[in-house]
């Protein structure tokens, strides 16, 4: 098999051109996942009546669905129901005006919320109960204790698991190809359909993902060092 460096370069450029799409498919779900995932984890760890139980059921059930399947379902609903919904809300938009990248972002966000909530819950459970009690004993409310004592201690514990989640999200973002969103993989293989150099196209996509992942991991390591400065080097 020949490796055509010219075609590889061309694929690399095309792939990078669609990097912004992948970025929004990773970072929007990441932010949503961190926000709602942390809330769900707290609700479950602090055993909020009913809601805690509902969230546990939701996370368990939702994690049993592959992302591709969920994506297809959301896309079908989106295509069938968007016009009705727009009419109902008196929006002057039809489905042809809409970019279905939002469907991809929604599907990835739901998956991120679930997996991040599990990572955060694990980190929360690792914190000694005495830290809560100490907070209460000096007159802090539960919310104050969570905000000032528990979450700062949870972050450095959660980061290694969160790195896993982000890397998973970066790679999972390529499945949105299935509903026709162009991201790194689809972008890198655009020239391939003309030049027949699919091998170069996919290698170019792999190289971009690899670079992306390396950058994210090194940033996360720094963040972990910074947020965990109160711990002895023992864990790092």
């Amino acid at each position, binding site marked *: 098999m020949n490796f055509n460096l010219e075609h590889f370069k061309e694929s690399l450029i095309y792939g990078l051109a669609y990097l912004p799409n992948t970025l929004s498919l990773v970072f929007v779900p990441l932010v949503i996942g961190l926000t709602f995932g942390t809330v769900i984890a707290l609700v479950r760890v602090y055993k909020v009546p009913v809601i805690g139980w509902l969230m546990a059921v939701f996370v368990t059930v939702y994690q049993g669905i592959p992302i591709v399947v969920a994506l297809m379902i959301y896309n079908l609903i989106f295509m069938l129901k968007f016009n009705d919904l727009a009419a109902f809300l008196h929006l002057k938009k039809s489905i042809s005006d809409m970019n279905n990248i939002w469907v991809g972002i929604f599907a990835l966000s739901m998956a991120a919320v679930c997996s991040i909530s599990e990572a955060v819950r694990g980190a929360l459970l690792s914190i*000694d109960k005495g830290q809560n009690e100490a907070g209460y004993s000096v007159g802090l409310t539960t919310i104050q204790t969570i905000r000032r004592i528990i979450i700062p201690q949870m972050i450095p514990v959660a980061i290694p698991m969160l790195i896993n989640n982000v890397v998973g999200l970066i790679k999972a973002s390529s499945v949105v190809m299935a509903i026709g969103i162009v991201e790194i993989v689809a972008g890198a293989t655009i020239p391939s359909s003309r030049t027949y150099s699919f091998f170069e196209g996919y290698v170019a996509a792999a190289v971009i993902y690899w670079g992306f992942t390396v950058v994210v991991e090194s940033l996360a390591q720094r963040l972990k060092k910074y947020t965990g400065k109160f711990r002895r080097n023992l864990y790092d």
Partner: protein
Amino acid sequence: MIEVKNIKKNFGKHSVLKDVSVKVEDGQVVVILGPSGSGKTTLLRCINFLENADSGRLTIGNLEVDLKKSTKKEILNIRRRTAFVFQNYNLFANKTAIENVMEGLVTGRHVPKAQARERAEEALNWVGLSDKFNYYPAQLSGGQQQRVGIARAFVLDPEVILFDEPTSALDPELVGETLDIIKKVAEKGITMIVVTHEMSFAQDVADKVIFMDGGIVVEEGTPEVIFSNPKEERTKQFLSRIISLDPNYSI
């Protein structure tokens, strides 16, 4: 004055506190003695609502609450009048020594930061940690951590400080330095309830000794009476085992 009336607490089927009542006058140091599982720690934790009692009433100063049916506001109110020193220190791991001491003032009581810092520095100096302000708990020894714990409780100027076996996680040398600090707190005239196994400390510092066993108060009185002339058979038995331990005995 702190008064606990008719407190009961079960863990499942196991009844840990069976109708216990305790009264502590202002400025008094009360030491609670008793074997493991006698309910002394649970009693202390119920006073600070770290455990929810099944029934009973609690009075601190002019505030009286039902231990079972108390609102969140009442609980917070009680907690802001009390302070707790834990067996395993429980310093906030993400905060330095000085931040640990300031936390209850700044966040819990809305004391301005500069003023809180001043009071925290004073408290840490007082427990002999003037050179450790910016150390994290993980960088301090057990004895130093417990002294920070005492400063954290003391700085709040509470109506009562509850000590839950403050020295039992420390080695014999560190026990001494920590007990000295607790004695200093007692000399300041702060009301204290201390659960401990340190008999000589109880003899030295206590105004009143309460002996608990099996979830009830077996006997209470001045240390002189309890240690030299106990009435109840169970108290005699417990004290004889402890006091007869040969101090020169080594394992």
